[in-house]
């Protein structure tokens, strides 16, 4: 298996959550790719380290799906960069992603924190 196939697998693995994380990040305002990586790292207390090999394909896919829009702007440090902004469609998607995420967390939680008497029966 080549290096590239490994990248693909990682994207698939993270797909649902990465999309949601990106959309959530963009909720706070338009941001460029580097900014998104930094924001996710800061907010997660350095736990979430998004690979660029996953981020950029995801951003471009989200744009194709119409959930984000992009435009070229100058950053504060006078660096020209591509800023992504969440669309109305993207907000709807984020809501449903979040919904599903909560369901999954709840479901996993109920498996992991089973009450002893139920497990005995």
């Amino acid at each position, binding site marked *: 298996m080549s290096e590239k196939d490994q990248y693909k697998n990682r994207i698939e693995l993270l797909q649902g959550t990465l999309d949601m994380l990106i959309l959530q990040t963009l909720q706070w305002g338009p941001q460029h790719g580097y900014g998104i990586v930094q924001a996710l790292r800061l907010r997660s207390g350095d736990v979430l380290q998004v690979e660029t090999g996953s981020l*950029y*394909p*995801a951003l471009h896919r989200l744009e194709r799906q119409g959930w984000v829009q992009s435009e070229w702007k100058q950053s504060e440090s006078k*660096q020209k*960069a*591509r800023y992504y902004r969440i669309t109305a469609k993207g907000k709807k998607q984020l809501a449903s992603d979040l919904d599903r995420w909560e369901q999954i967390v709840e479901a996993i939680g109920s498996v992991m924190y089973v009450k002893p008497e139920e497990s005995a029966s």
Partner: protein
Amino acid sequence: MKWFPGFGFQRRNRELKEEIDAHLQMAIADRVARGEAEETARQAAAREFGNILLVQDVTRQMWGGGWFEPLGRDVRYALRQLRKSPGFTITATAMLAVAICANSTVFSWIDGTMLRPIPGARDTDDLVSLQRGERNFSPTPPFSYLDYRDLREQNHTFAGILAYHHDWITLTGGALPERAYIANVSANYFDVLGIKPVLGRFFLSEEETRPAIPNVVLSYSLWKTRYAADPAIVGKSIEIARHPVTVIGVAPEGVVGAMPGIREDLWVTLDPLGTDVWRMTHRSGGAVWLNVIGRLRPGVSRGQAAQDLDTVMHNIVAAFPDDHLGDNRITLDPMWRSPFGANGYMAATLPILLAFAAVVLLLTSANLATLTLVRFVSRRRELAIRQSLGANRIQLVRQMVLEGVVLSIVAGAVALVLTSWTSKTFAWFFPANSNPLILNGSMDHKVVIGIAVSSLLAGMLCGALPAWRSAHAPAIEVLKAESASISGGSRNRKLLSGLVVAQIALSLPLLVCSGLFLRTLRNLAGANPGFEQDHILTASVGLNIAGYSHDEEQVIRHKILDRVSALPGVKVASLTDWIPMTLGHKGDDAYPEGYVPHPHESLQVYHAEVAPRYFESLHIPILEGREFTPDDDEKAPRVLIVDQTAARRYWPGQDPLGKKLRIWGGLFTVVGVARNSTHIFVNESPEPIVYMSFFQVGYETIVQVKTEGNPVDLAPAVENAIHEIDTRLPVFDVRPMRESTQMASSFAVVQSALAGMFALIGLVLAVTGIYGVVAYRTQMRTHEIGVRMALGASRVDVLRLVLLQGLWLTGMGMALGLAFALGLTRFIARLLYGIGANDPVTVVSVVMLLGAMSLLACYFPAHRAMRRNPVSAIREL
């Protein structure tokens, strides 16, 4: 270079690069702000980012248009690679184009003849031609009108059955009389074919038998040329053989009638003048004059239909046994191989040539595959680098296959242009003759699809195989030890050897077949047909088609004979109504007096009507009895001359002289026996023929002159002599006998010309193939050879080493090829003459030729290797 500007690929690609660049710049800026040194920051940011190219690649895949943009990239890459080696590109394209053109040319001929048997007709797959009795080439029309009508009305399996009979006629009434091919047709003729008129109407069913309705339908081309495309032609009267007839309609452009390969110019009903009542009311003899074609009902198979018609025919035979002696079983043929017209010959010749062409294409693909493989092996470093940069094998293979496909598309386009010309060369093979032949290739969508399919297949074949092999090589190995993996590893060596063996194995049968065909042609040309062909001139006089009465005709015939005989330079003049070896013949049932034939026993003989001195002019000896004399005229008893085959068939072991044969209900007395001679083909099995006296039963008039010098020189004098009798006499087909009889070998010429060309291509490909591979492998072994020589090997040893390697391949290929050839020649056995299908002389000479050429091809690289200086050879890695 911008390939898909509309898709914005270039712009998006640039933006992606800028986006990534911005990312890196910001990361560096952050790190510098945190106090890192500029250089360390740059390196750390790059490391953190990862493989930039790969990120770009994966991101690009998100853009959609999924395959199109990478494809565009691959095509551009393939073009760049091909442009880098113009020698290979041009050679490969030319080779492929020739091979594809060979296929498409033969296919266009098949398309124009067998696949388009009746131009303009609807669903020709449902049409079948009906034959009564034996199935043979160019049979005589098999049905009488009454039999045809019964078959048409009593069958349960046909949507319609048509009948026709055609012949030459003279169009009079204009400024100049003109000869045209006219067909008497059943009223449903155009209906069954599914053709609608462009002007006026076609025949009505009630017009079929009611006599004296002289209506005519014109072909589009006749309407245009002779009647200036007169839009008001319908209802006008024109003159045919001095009889007024009314134009009722014009057929669409391209419609030429129901017999494959023959052009009809105008159509009338079966008995338009009411003068043929006898023919319309009898069931045998001269009343058997119709060719019949049926359209099967949907869902009915040919077998069912044949059974159905056999039942009907059985009843007819039971009701009229005296009119149906001989074989009456009905056979049905699809129009693509209908024995009536040209397709019988086509079906016997063209598919075999197409198979040959396919072998040439296969051979070319194998040759190109070796070239490609060698090229890829020499490019293996580049491939390895691409692989280690992240290209996976599928991508590499796709790219390399694409190079093959790009080549083959270009080659296909070239072949398309070439074929649009070569498809029209088919007509060249047929000498001037007395039939309105319209044989030629056609260039339609089927041919274009054929070219596309064969070029893509060839492209895949010569791209995919080597590509898959080359992409297999492990990148690290290749990069690490360039020179150690000699000739790209043993796998490639085996593949190369296999391809060379395949090329020799494929070219050998081609050479054997073409050798057999060429020798057949020589045998045909050298064969003695049993009659004199040189110094003979023939000229047709359209007496029967010009509207003369029977008595007038007889007087004119005698006058012609007298005048032409008196011409200076004429040795002997005679009349006949048949020229041998022109693909035509007349046949009728003939029974010895008192003989009762068994059911279905066919006693058909060829017959020809000839005037006195016919046998003298053709040098056909009369073995017993006498030749015809001027006294054998209509007042005298009917007489016959039979050939040896007929004599043996009817009166084995007896003296045929004085015996009687019953033909058309009349008795003919045998007065002579002529030596056998060729009737249609030199390689025919002898068929019995009876000659009748021209002045008793002759129909068409052909003047036959034996000349002192070149017969062509006498042509104007003969024409003048005939026109002196009556200037309105149509004279046509004036040509030497030699020229007319070429028709009999025209298919042999087609076969040997094409097979010869294909074999030549095959030989060149096989020899260049083995040369290329041996030269390449020898070059790859330069180092090894240097070592061998340094260790004491002599130059002869080196020569032997290289030669043996090449000869080993040749030997394998020839062994395989021989087996292939021996299996294949059975299929062409039918087409050969004077030579066996496994003729040892041909096979041995082909093997020697191929062997000698391969030896020569191997000698050059061997010689080069031998002359190398061992010291410099060892250095070369």
